[in-house]
């Protein structure tokens, strides 16, 4: 069985800057994969390539055996790749419910006629998906609040809820634990584990190594746009190449 997500020789150049250079990797169905690397390694660019927000310079991305390299971002989302952001992208002036129903709306798509006639209330399919996602993330009591009034931690869950409303098969999390305290991070890890248990594949970037090492079954390491290691958390954390990328080589350090 082919992997759910397969990245083949992906390259992305910004002028002379090789942000992502010949990156190949995959995420299997139901797998929890971490992507780590020093700042500026190209992790977020790689996410942008996978979600087709930034076009590839060369290479290809396959999702469920479909080449998605040339699709538009919203198409990729509808195919089943949902993501959250490092700097949150919730809609601050919309209610929590509306924020999440955007995900549900995005998943269903609509004809121009339906766009004008179908209501977005609590009763129809959009409403049901929205409620499901709100309940999964424990935000149901905040449904009518403005997103801007939520705490930072809650807004993180709001973004995840919006992504879940898409009923994705792959959830991409960009630094989900950033800005959370230890208790909140542990709760988040538990939550991600639960989603994974329901069959969702997870790909995440995170700087909190404890979070990555405890949560992920496999870790890919990036440095200067290239993949330098790929393996279990144990293997990766003992890999001299990885240590060098993070800490500098021993000669330099000496």
């Amino acid at each position, binding site marked *: 069985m082919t992997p759910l997500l397969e990245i083949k020789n992906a390259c992305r150049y910004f002028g002379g800057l090789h942000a992502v250079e010949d990156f190949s990797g995959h995420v299997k169905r139901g797998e929890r994969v971490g992507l780590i690397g020093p700042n500026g390694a190209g992790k977020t660019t790689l996410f942008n390539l996978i979600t087709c927000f930034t076009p590839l310079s060369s290479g290809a991305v396959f999702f469920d055996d479909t080449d998605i390299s040339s699709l538009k971002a919203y198409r990729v989302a509808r195919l089943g790749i949902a993501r959250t952001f490092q700097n949150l992208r919730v809609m601050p002036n919309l209610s929590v419910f509306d924020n999440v129903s955007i995900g549900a709306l995005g998943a269903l798509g609509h004809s121009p006629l339906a766009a004008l006639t179908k209501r977005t*209330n609590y009763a129809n399919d959009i409403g049901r998906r929205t409620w499901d996602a709100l309940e999964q993330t424990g935000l149901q009591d905040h449904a009518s609040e403005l997103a801007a009034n939520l705490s930072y931690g809650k807004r993180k869950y709001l973004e995840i809820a919006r992504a879940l409303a898409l009923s994705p098969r792959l959830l991409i999390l960009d630094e989900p634990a950033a800005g959370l305290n230890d208790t909140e991070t542990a709760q988040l890890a538990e939550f991600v584990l639960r989603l994974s248990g329901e069959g969702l594949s997870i790909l995440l970037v995170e700087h909190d190594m404890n979070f990555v090492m405890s949560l992920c079954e496999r870790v890919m390491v990036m440095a200067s746009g290239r993949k330098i290691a790929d393996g279990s958390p144990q293997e990766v954390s003992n890999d001299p190449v990885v240590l060098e990328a993070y800490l500098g080589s021993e000669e330099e350090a000496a």
Partner: protein
Amino acid sequence: MFDVFFVQQLVNGLSIGLIYALMAIGFTLIFGVLNVVNFAHGEVYMIGAFAGLLAITQLAPPLFAVILVALAFGALAGFGLERIAFRPFRRFRDEASLKSKAIREATLLSSLAVSIIVRELAEKIFGSNMQSIPQEYLLLKPIEIGPLSFANGQFLIFGLSIVMLGGLQWLLKHTRVGLSIRAVANNPMGAAYVGINTERTIIATFVIGSTLGAIAGLIVGLYQGAIFPAMGFAPGVKAFVAMVMGGLSSIGGAVVCALILGMAEAITTSFFAQGWGDLVAYLFLVITLVFFPTGLFGGGRERV
């Protein structure tokens, strides 16, 4: 002070303010979604009036049908405008381009260019003078209520504006396209990542905003008996001022400010010579910019 004439002027001001509001909403919707001022909105207003006038002279249908014609042409004009003046500047989708001032300003200028070209074309085809409008379509039949006298056009303006403003609110709050528009206005990248077709949402916004503008143009044309290629300029400026006063992206704010503006103009003309009325808008604009840089209802995302 509260003599009949004054009340009359207030009602006139209210009806003209409603027209500014309809136009200002077109501005505000498009600004909300794209962060760009659409300077060709006045020409959409003019196209609505001319489309209606052509329908009248060619087919002489009932007024209801004339409004539908203006609506259709307004929608078409909005669609075309987006294609010609706005779409080409959205080729670059990365975040830096989305936030780039240079691209915003290029878009703004391209809409200004389209505005000038369309206006000049209309002058070439129709001449720059006021068009003659068949008498039976003029909305100037007097209706007397006590000592006050109104034109039937004023009632049409009231009715239609309130229906359209209410309809728009309903559309934004309760329909799928409305939710998409609010999502894109709040955060276009976030919306795209969860499956919202932002391009189609932008087109929908243009179509809706332009429809309101075109209908406003037609009714005002018939009410004032003045349909001419440059007719969109003055109300365009007023609507722009209303949008700025309202805080750029607040629809409610734009409507309230448009009403204030219309009333203020009417009151001014009742105490001073006619020409002073137009000055009010500019005065308001300056006051807003100096003292309320985020607008009177500024949930504004940035300074004007």
